[in-house]
């Protein structure tokens, strides 16, 4: 199995593994941020350029460094490859540039955006960006588009990661939206305002890294960090039925797919599970969803608890809210 060294850490991986995947196996400290790659979507990645890394040694066979930074999500590793991510000033500098590019036209309307709190662009700019902007020009804006009665497209916030296009292509039974126009005039749009109407269309909301595609049934109901995520499932003939329910009190405010530690959905879910089953009695509750402790959502995080196999609504209500103690660890 080929070996790769990323920021000084070495790992053996299967043939065909990309640098990004290998870095994720090594852990958070060496994994580059990824705004467009999505594990479960074929041909995703390559667009946003946030995952750029430096290949300082191509392989044992051909040790020459690669002439340019490469998109780690689309570059397969070779045996003996050496990669620099956070240890390369060049990478840090380039990434800072990418973040700046992604932000010059972003509305930064986080205070009124449903994505705030679980927005990858917020995390990215917090971790890799600068506090000030150097642009002074009017930002690009678009009109909002209603995509059916459940989804809204707020194109102004879109970073053109193409994930929703790939979802439509790969897991719904017919893509009716895509990118129209060119350059910074590009926009995600439905073909002649056609409505995206498909059993799996709701997944575009989950994959969208920013607040461009939002769930209309959840619109403005709550900030995400005021909701409690619970893993739950039901028997569904269309999808696995495995979801995360987002509670406020007894009420399910929204339903999403279950996301892994990289914020990616593990299994795509159908629209019935997402939009139509909003009663606790529709679901078998498995327990609180483990959320990364760095996330603002972990204000309501229950890490360390012994989780019973099935919880009743009363059990959920009794769950304590988490507090962070001074050394940053969570505690009840």
């Amino acid at each position, binding site marked *: 199995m080929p070996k790769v060294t990323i920021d000084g850490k070495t790992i053996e991986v299967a043939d065909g593994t990309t640098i990004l995947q290998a870095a994720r196996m090594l852990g958070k400290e060496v994994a580059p941020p990824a705004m467009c790659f999505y594990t479960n979507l074929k041909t995703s990645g*390559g667009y946003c*350029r946030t995952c*750029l890394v430096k290949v300082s040694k191509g392989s044992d066979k051909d040790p020459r460094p690669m002439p*340019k930074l490469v998109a780690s999500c689309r570059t397969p590793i070779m045996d003996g490859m050496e990669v620099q991510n956070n240890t390369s000033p060049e990478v840090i500098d380039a990434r800072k540039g*990418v973040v700046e590019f*992604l932000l*010059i036209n972003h509305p930064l309307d986080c205070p009124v955006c449903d994505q705030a709190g679980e927005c990858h662009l917020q995390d990215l700019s917090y971790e890799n960006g600068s506090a000030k902007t150097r642009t002074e020009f009017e930002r690009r804006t678009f009109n909002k588009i209603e995509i059916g009665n459940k989804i809204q497209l707020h194109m102004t916030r879109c970073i*053109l990661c193409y994930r929703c296009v790939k979802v439509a292509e790969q897991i719904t039974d017919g893509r009716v939206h895509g*990118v129209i126009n060119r350059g910074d005039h590009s926009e995600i749009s439905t073909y002649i305002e056609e409505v995206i109407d498909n059993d799996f269309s709701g997944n575009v909301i989950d994959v969208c890294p920013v607040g461009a595609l939002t769930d209309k049934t959840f619109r403005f109901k709550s900030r995400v960090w005021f909701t409690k995520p619970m893993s739950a499932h039901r028997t569904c003939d269309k999808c696995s039925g495995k979801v995360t329910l987002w509670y406020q009190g007894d009420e399910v405010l929204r339903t999403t797919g279950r996301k892994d530690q990289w914020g990616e959905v593990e299994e795509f879910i159908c629209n019935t599970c997402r939009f139509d089953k909003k009663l606790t009695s529709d679901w078998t509750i498995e327990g609180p969803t483990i959320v990364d402790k760095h996330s603002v959502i972990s204000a309501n995080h229950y890490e360390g608890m012994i989780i019973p196999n099935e919880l009743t609504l009363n059990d959920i209500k009794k769950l304590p809210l988490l507090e962070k103690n001074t050394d940053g660890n969570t505690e009840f």
Partner: protein
Amino acid sequence: MGKKILLKHDHVSGIQGYEVYRKMGGYTSVERALKNMTPNEVTEEVKKSGLRGRGGAGFPTGLKWSFMAKPKGVKRYLVCNADESEPGTFKDRYLMSRIPHLLIEGMIASSYALGANTAYIYIRGEFFYIARILENAINEAYANGWLGKNILDSNYSLDLFVHTGAGAYICGEETALLESLEGKRGNPRIKPPFPAVKGAWDCPTVVNNVETIAAVVPIINDGGEAYSKVGIGKSTGTKLISASGHINKPGVYEIEMGITVEDFIYSDEYCGGILNGKKLKAVVAGGSSVPILPADLILKTANGKPRLMSYESLADGGFTTGTMLGSGGFIVMDETTSIVKNLWNFTRFYHHESCGQCSPCREGTAWMEKVLHKILDGQGSLTDIDLLWEIQRKIEGNTICPLGEAAAWPVASAIRHFKSEFEEYVKNPSSINDVKHYFEVNKLEMA
């Protein structure tokens, strides 16, 4: 008179049509290849010739052909890149409209070498009249047995199609071209895989420029070695140069590689000197994307040697003091030219033509245009010049396709060599004579 290989007969009356073309020795390369040579032998001749791609990057053509994957039972394609949209470049247009059969002949011989039974000429939408000329020529070639089934009883068959684009510069990038050819949105693909492995409809494909394919004809006729003796060093053969700007004789010239830049600009055989006896200020030597050079550096390299029209000599000094031969779009600017205005116009072009897939190019090209526009509007500040430098630096090398670099290099080189002009505009906005007027007269709008 300099050596002419491709345009030897361009002024012969009737050369557009089959009869005259054939009388002047046309299609002999196909006869030679199909009757006396194996496909590999043809490729070997092209390797020997030292021919390098004329589309801009200058990649050795024979080597590119030998990279073509040849899995059994899988179709292979040859695609001719006739998208020619780089500002300042118009040589393919001339060649195709003057001597269409030269391209057809080259396509047949090259397809034979690559084992392709289907080939395409992807031509930019604005060239619809040339598409007609080519289609006519193709019909004549079919009628005379040079295309179709079992050509010259050799068992080799080839179908050739002309496909028009819809007028996007990015469709000249070879993988965007293939997407467009397949009927999709013309977005460049993420490489690898390269077209030689997975190209049109996922089959192995070679994409070559019009001039590259045309040059295969004399290489087969006279042998690779004879071709390699023309030119200088690794810049073998002749090159078509599209000369434009402030010169007495703009047009397309075939030059032997290795003539001096000075000779090219000032001799009567080529550009005939600067218009109205003015002084030379700068040259963009290889199409709008290559770095601009001031007069002293285009005529002589940094170490004082005369600059030659060749890949190596134009690149001498790297980007600090050199440039690139690129596609051979030679744009000459006299002392009255505003480098900043010209740069704004180039940048406006790249902004308009970015496909928008990757963040640095999508956002960066638009941003650079806005900053330049601001400076030309008399609103600039010194920090804007630094900002421009920073933006181009953050685009370069960080994008999916080379359009990002093509947009960054003109900005970098203009600041590198003409920074004082930017500073003058910023400090003394009245020196931007008639900017508003300039915008109006030219009916230019921000892209």
